[in-house]
C-alpha cells in the first residue's frame, strides 16, 4: 500500500477515534475504581507475602456484640493487612516513635545494612488473622520497614503470636547468633489471576506442600520468597525478600538487626 492508502487509513482511524471521549465524570469514576482495585490487590499481594497459614487450627477468644465473650474454635486461613501510602513514614526515627506509641515497644531497626541496602519507608499496620469465612480471629499491630529500591527487602516485626503456628515452609538453614536462633526459609510461589486454573503439575506440587499458589494477581508470575525469622524480647522479626538475595545474605542482614543497640 503506498502513501495514499496509508494516509487515508490513518486519517479515518484518527477521526473515528477522536470522536470517542469519555466524559470527565466517567474519567474520575474510573480513577476511583482503579484506586479501589489497587488497594484490594495490594492487600491480596501482601496477604500472599505473609504466607497462607491454611489448615492451621487456632482456638481464640472472640467478643460478640461487645458484651458477650465466647470461645470459638477456628482455623486461621490467612493474615490480612493493608497499608495506605499516606500512612508510610520515611525516616527510621519516625517509625520507631510510631512503634513506641502503637506497639508499646522499641523495635530494632537498621538504617543502612552493610550491603548498602537502606531504609526506605515504613508503617505500623493492623494485621487480622481471619478464618475461611473472613471472620477476624485475632488482631495485632505489626511494624513494616521497607528497604532498598521498591522495598526489595522487608522487615516485619510484631509481638509473638502463639495462636499463629508456624507454616510448613522449607527451612533451608538454622543458625544461632547471640543465643538467638535464626531460621531461613524458602518458598516457591505461583501467583495467578483470580479466575485462572493451575496446571496439574502445579496442583500436585501444591498438594505436596512444595508450591504456594495464590490467586489475585493480574498475571501469572513465579517467585521464590526467602525469609529469615527469629524471636527476641517477645518480638517476632521476619526479614524477607523475593529478589536475588540468598538465605545467607538475609541471615547476614538479620545479624545486623540483632546487633542494633
Amino acid at each position, binding site marked *: 500500500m503506498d502513501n495514499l492508502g496509508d494516509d487515508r487509513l490513518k486519517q*479515518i482511524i484518527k477521526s*473515528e477515534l477522536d470522536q470517542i471521549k469519555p466524559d470527565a465524570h466517567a*474519567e474520575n469514576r474510573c480513577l476511583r475504581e*482503579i484506586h479501589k482495585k489497587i488497594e484490594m490487590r495490594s492487600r491480596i499481594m501482601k496477604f500472599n507475602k505473609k504466607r497462607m497459614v491454611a489448615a492451621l487450627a487456632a482456638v481464640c477468644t472472640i467478643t460478640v456484640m461487645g458484651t458477650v465473650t465466647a470461645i470459638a474454635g477456628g482455623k486461621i486461613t490467612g493474615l490480612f493487612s493493608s497499608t495506605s501510602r499516606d500512612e508510610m513514614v520515611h525516616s527510621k526515627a519516625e517509625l520507631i516513635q510510631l512503634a513506641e506509641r502503637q506497639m508499646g515497644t522499641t523495635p530494632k531497626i537498621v538504617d543502612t545494612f552493610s550491603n548498602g541496602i537502606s531504609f526506605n519507608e515504613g508503617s505500623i499496620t493492623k494485621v487480622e488473622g481471619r478464618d475461611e469465612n473472613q471472620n477476624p480471629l485475632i488482631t495485632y499491630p505489626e511494624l513494616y520497614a521497607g528497604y532498598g529500591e521498591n522495598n526489595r527487602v522487608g522487615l516485619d516485626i510484631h509481638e509473638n503470636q502463639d495462636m499463629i503456628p508456624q507454616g510448613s515452609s522449607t527451612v533451608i538453614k538454622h543458625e544461632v547468633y547471640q543465643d538467638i536462633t535464626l531460621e531461613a526459609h524458602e518458598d516457591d510461589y505461583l501467583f495467578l489471576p483470580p479466575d485462572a486454573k493451575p496446571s496439574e503439575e502445579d496442583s500436585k506440587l501444591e498438594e505436596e506442600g512444595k508450591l504456594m499458589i495464590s490467586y489475585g494477581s493480574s*498475571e501469572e508470575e513465579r517467585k521464590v520468597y526467602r525469609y529469615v525469622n527469629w524471636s527476641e524480647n517477645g518480638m517476632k522479626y521476619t526479614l524477607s525478600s523475593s529478589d536475588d538475595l540468598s538465605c545467607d545474605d538475609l541471615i547476614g542482614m538479620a545479624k545486623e538487626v540483632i546487633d542494633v543497640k
Partner: protein
Amino acid sequence: MEEKKALVESMINGSEAAFDELYHSYSGKLYRMAYFITGNRSDSEDILQETFVKCYLYKSKLKQTERFEPWLYQILVRTAWRLERKKKGRAEISYEGILENEEDKKSAEHIREDKKTDGPLESVLVAETANEIQAALSNLDIKYRTVILLYYYNELSTREIAHITGAMEGTVKSRLHKARKLLKDLLKADSSEKTEMERGFCHG
C-alpha cells in the same frame, strides 16, 4: 517530556498524586485504543481500569522511565487480548501465530482464490466512505485490529509493535500485510453486496 519522566519516576517511588496525573494525561488515548480494539465502551472502560491497576502494582518492573508509554500500550494490548480470550469461552489464542481461527483462514483463502481483488487497497479506500471503512475495520480479527491501531494511530514502528504484542517483527509485518488484505477483501465484499442490492432495487 522531562516533566512526564519526572512524574513517572515519582509514581515508581509510590506517589499517588503522580499516578493520578499520569492517569489523567493518558486515560483518553488509552480508552480510545481500547475502544478500537474491542469495539465497545464497557469493555474499554474495564481494560482502561485494568491497565492502570497493573501499571501501579507492577511499576517496579518499569526499568526505563522513558519507555513508560510503550509499556502502558503493552499492558493495554495484552489485557484486551486476555479479555477477548475470555469472551471466546476461554479458547486458546496463540499470539505468536497468525490465521489461527477458522474465520481468518476462510478470509485468507478467499483472498488467495479471488485474484480479482488483488488490486491496490488505496483504490478501494478512496472509493469507500469513512463509515464503510470503519465497519470493515471492526470486522477484522482482534490481532489485526491491534496491529492496524498501533501502526496507523500510534504511528509505531513494526519493531515497537513487536515488542508490545510479544511477537516477532516478521510476524508483525505479516499481520500488517494480511490485515490490509483482509480489509480490502471486506471492503470489496461490502461493495459487491451494495452493487447487488442496487441492481435488485433497479430491477425490482
